[in-house]
């Protein structure tokens, strides 16, 4: 499944937030969006998911414009992982993950035994089957994030969109969640678009990086985009990009902020 954003301008009523941007995400690609707060990352997601309509341009999935697609049709191909928050009712984790099947259900149906099996498989793949009967509002933030990813997987999508999947997670969980997403993308060939506030996250797992800042939109490999100049321009801080070898002698890059 190829996602293609073509000369799109997005924003609300009078305000245009992003102007004339184009990019594509292919099967198994992992695109990380970097940019300061308020630059329009979430608005871009909302446009892709059909919550708000484009001001101009088009969004295509495998060459087909999604403007007129129904919500169930979109939900069968795009899985969305929002920032975790809790609903007002004590749903079990399995209840929450099963809601990923709604797009596949008939109008009046509720999940069948087969849907339960698919939901359980998603939990299994993320290694969180033990959470199945727990109350969703009572598990930890990291667990909740994993449950939402499991719910998106239960939609059996070809494209996964994650809104800051690492926010509110401790350091270890941040890396664990990112590596899980990377594994899913590699194993199933799912295209992934995610936002992050940490350039290191892009170095860790992304095949592509898009940088959004006041000067516009730039996309390329992590090595090309995450440069000391670009970070200074985007975030207004001084950084050094360093490179070191991991356990297998592969180069790993890191972006280190400087105090002066």
């Amino acid at each position, binding site marked *: 499944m190829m996602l293609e954003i073509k000369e799109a301008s997005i924003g609300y009523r009078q305000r245009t937030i992003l102007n004339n941007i184009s990019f594509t995400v292919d099967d198994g690609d992992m695109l990380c969006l970097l940019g300061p707060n308020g630059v329009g990352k979430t608005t871009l997601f909302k446009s892709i998911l059909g919550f708000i309509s484009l001001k101009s341009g088009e969004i295509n999935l495998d060459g087909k414009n999604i403007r007129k697609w129904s*919500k169930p049709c979109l939900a069968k191909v795009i899985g*969305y992982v*929002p920032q975790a928050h809790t609903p007002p*009712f004590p*749903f079990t984790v399995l*209840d929450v993950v099963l809601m990923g099947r709604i*797009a596949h*259900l008939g109008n009046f149906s*509720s999940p069948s035994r087969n849907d339960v099996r698919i939901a359980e498989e998603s939990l299994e793949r993320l290694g969180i089957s033990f959470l199945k009967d727990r109350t969703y509002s009572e598990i930890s933030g990291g667990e909740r994030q994993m449950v939402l990813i499991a719910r998106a997987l239960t939609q059996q999508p070809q494209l996964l969109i994650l809104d800051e999947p690492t926010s509110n997670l401790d350091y270890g969980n941040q890396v664990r969640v990112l590596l899980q997403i990377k594994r899913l993308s590699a194993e199933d060939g799912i295209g992934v678009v995610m936002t992050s506030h940490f350039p290191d996250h892009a170095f860790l797992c992304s095949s592509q990086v898009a940088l959004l800042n006041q000067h516009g939109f730039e996309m390329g490999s992590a090595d090309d985009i995450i440069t000391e100049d670009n970070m200074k321009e985007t975030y207004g801080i001084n950084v050094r990009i360093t490179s070191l070898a991991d356990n297998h002698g592969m180069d790993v890059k890191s972006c280190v902020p400087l105090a002066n």
Partner: protein
Amino acid sequence: MRPPDTANPRVQNMTDEAAGKMRPARPQVVLVVLLVMLVAVFLWSFTVGRYAVPLPDLLTVFFRKLFGLSATWSSTLETVLFNIRIPRIIVALIIGAALSASGAAYQGLFRNPMVSPDILGAAAGAGFGAAMAILYSAGSITIQLVAFICGILAVMTTYFVSRLISKGHNSVLVLVLTGMVVTSLFSAFISLAKYTADPNNKLPEITFWLLGGLASITAKNIKLILIPFIIGIIPMFLYRYKLNALSFGDEEAQALGVDTKKMRFIYIFSATLLTASSVATGGMIGWVGLVIPHLARMLVGPNYKYMLPASVMLGGAYLLLIDDLSRTLFMVEIPLSILTAIIGAPFFIYLLFKGRDSWV
């Protein structure tokens, strides 16, 4: 003093197992138990109050009617049973079920466990309609009809004004705020109607009507609540699973493949028919639509697949019991809204205590 048991892993395992056995019953089992309870309350309601009909007599009547056999009972019993007792019991069941179902749906739709079915103005609108009809000395059917129509009009006002304000953006918050405005507007109209009413006859009539009661219900009143009930409850039941997704918020529900605009319209349409017809028939009966969904959630969990049927059965049984109390407790009937508040408020506090882990 012994060290805490949890220090010993074997004991821990055992307590886990014990906890496993203590787990809440399967929702399907609870629903069957609730159905049995509902039937029991239904039958028991015939046997209490003035003109009580003993159970054997009642079953004889039902049995012989069903098979078209000749009557072995007095014509007084027949009149009491078919014109007064059965209509009243059915109306109590319907009102309880309707208010609870609407409350359950609205709590999910508005993502707030403190929401009750009158939030968009249905009850205030219906109350105003009834007050006006009483002011013009209308008969009981006209009062019911005018109240029903005004309840619908009030919610339509809320719905369309909020759509104008949010310009297709369809915000739930705007909807609730507009609902509050429309409710207080119609409450003011009710006060105006009371203020202009003759204090010797019309004012008490309006006041008592608003307090709620089923004393004047006869077979004639059934049609005007049964039809809206059926039209309202069916779509709500068919689409109930999607309410789960809506309780996660609009955008999440859309991303899961729910057409939120259409669904919201369907739930509001259904809940409005249910609430307006209930208030038009039984007066302003509070607390049922707020408390019963909580009780249902506690018994079968928050999944609407089971929670909505549980709310319907619990609500029906609850209001029927309240109405039984209302007509048996004293020589004079006690208005329903007084009883639902006196019983409902402490009960709600109890529920808050029991469920506080998930609130606080």
